[in-house]
């Protein structure tokens, strides 16, 4: 039986060239959405087809790949993509943020600071920050070209008028390099400050919408706000129940149907590292304890 033989990292070389060109252009114009000829990938749209194509185009044999989904290294999506590249490119994989050279992510930026030489690849569902206010693509492109971003503040105004504060908590619009307004993909706004002046290269791939954009290393990224309603980060006001961290982004986990819940770090690698260093939270004394049923 003949097993199918794929090119290194699944995509053929001409496709990778095309994607690399788009990436180079995106890096040259920080925050600008570059159209590219997105390919069909062996996974459904919405599962990271854009991110996977960008990763495939930049991956080399010496790279070490980490894939996270909502901060976690061990959810279905993260494991599938990690296995996909382990099989098609034979690259080394890791869950440690510091050891990775390429990190593909869905909805989070790792807690551990990124360093120069690393590339963070985001999976993006909707690259256009103005989309829900201005449905015409021709018009939004013109607005980007002319730098007409008053409409973005209309969205923030609506938040304050309705909720008393800027209630947008993810996909919070940012201005890149004092020019283009960009959607940072659905990362929580907690992560927005990490994008500013980051030593790592940040690439964004939207497969269905066929767009690639980028933030080069050490580029200014400013979250939009009002003078009297400045940008604020948001996290649950609790320490992590496993590692006790009080500075990380937390997931809320419902533990029964009586209203009990616990908060744990969304970044599993960060949490495990802290536990290995001896940090303990309220729930971590007996991590394998099972409650009696019935």
């Amino acid at each position, binding site marked *: 039986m003949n097993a199918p033989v794929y090119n290194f990292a699944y995509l053929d070389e001409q496709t990778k060239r095309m994607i690399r060109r788009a990436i180079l252009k995106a890096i040259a114009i920080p925050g600008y959405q570059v159209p590219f000829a997105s390919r069909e990938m062996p996974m459904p749209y919405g599962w990271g087809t854009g991110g996977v194509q960008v990763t495939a185009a930049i991956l080399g044999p010496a790279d070490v790949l980490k894939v996270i989904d909502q901060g976690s290294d061990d959810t279905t999506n993260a494991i599938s993509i990690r296995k996909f590249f382990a099989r098609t490119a034979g690259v080394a994989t890791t869950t440690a943020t510091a050891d990775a050279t390429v990190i593909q992510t869905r909805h989070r930026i790792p807690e551990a600071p990124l360093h120069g030489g690393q590339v963070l690849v985001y999976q993006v569902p909707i690259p256009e920050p103005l989309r829900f*206010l201005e449905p015409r693509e021709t018009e939004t492109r013109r607005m980007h070209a002319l730098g007409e971003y008053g409409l973005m503040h209309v969205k923030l105004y609506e938040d304050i008028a309705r909720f008393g504060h800027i209630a947008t908590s993810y996909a919070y619009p940012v201005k890149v390099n004092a020019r283009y307004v960009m959607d940072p993909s659905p990362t929580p706004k907690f992560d927005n400050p990490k994008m500013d002046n980051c030593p790592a290269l940040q690439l964004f791939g939207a497969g269905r919408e066929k767009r690639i954009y980028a933030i080069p290393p050490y580029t200014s990224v400013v979250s939009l706000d009002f*003078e009297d309603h400045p940008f604020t980060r948001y996290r649950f006001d609790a320490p992590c129940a496993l590692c006790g961290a009080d500075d990380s982004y937390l997931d809320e986990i419902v533990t029964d149907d009586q209203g009990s819940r616990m908060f744990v770090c969304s970044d599993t690698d960060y949490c495990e590292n802290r536990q290995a260093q001896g940090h303990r939270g309220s729930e971590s004394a007996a991590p394998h304890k099972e409650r009696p049923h019935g």
Partner: protein
Amino acid sequence: MADSKIAVQDNDQPLLLADGLGKSYGRLSACRDVSFALYPGEVLAIVGESGSGKSTLLQLLSAQLSPSAGKVSYRMRDGVMRDLAALGEAERRFLLRTDWGYVHQDPVLGLRMAVSAGANVGERLMAVGWNHYGRIRDTATSWLERVEIDVGRIDDAPRTYSGGMRQRLQIARNLVTEPRLVFMDEPTGGLDVSVQARLLDLMRNLVSELGLAAIVVTHDLAVARLLSHRVMVMKGGRVIETGLTDQVLDDPREPYTQLLVSSILPA
């Protein structure tokens, strides 16, 4: 203030100048050889039946269509007369959302129906760089008061507004940046008579308070009589008669204008 001195001097000079303006679509000529000057604070009505080229002319004047012949010049805030066709797109769009207003016949075209009234009014302010929520909201509130919309409805979307309220909101949205020239395309179309009367009253007050220049396209001679100082009558894409409003409407010279005036149903 230096600004007001310049403005006073400018009142002697036209704000907008149309020169031999024409637009044709192939053999069809929608609008031919239109020339006039509009002065600051002046309200000009363009009347005529459907298909006479009124709306085409309005789009030519507001730089939304490019003319096939002739040109439109506009005196910018710095006092320099500029040919609209020579402006870059960025400048033209900036003009359209700061120094100009455009009131559509259908408010759905001129408003964002899904965002609140306050944001609709505030959008132009945010577009010119206002970055203080409290000030934007205060300005929006005072404009809603001026156009007689209940301030308690500032956070409601215009979807929930009546036709007359939508039209008043559209006017507030346009006037918030204190434009010097407002284009209106059938501003009272589709409204019932009592709402029309109230809207006309409001517009007449605003225009005189703010010293706005306006170009109003209408097929309703009552609107022309109430709002405008001067009237231009169009037929088949040409201007056939022009003059002071009461002169044209009370003593029409052209047979077509006589027909228009006599077609008004007696109340």
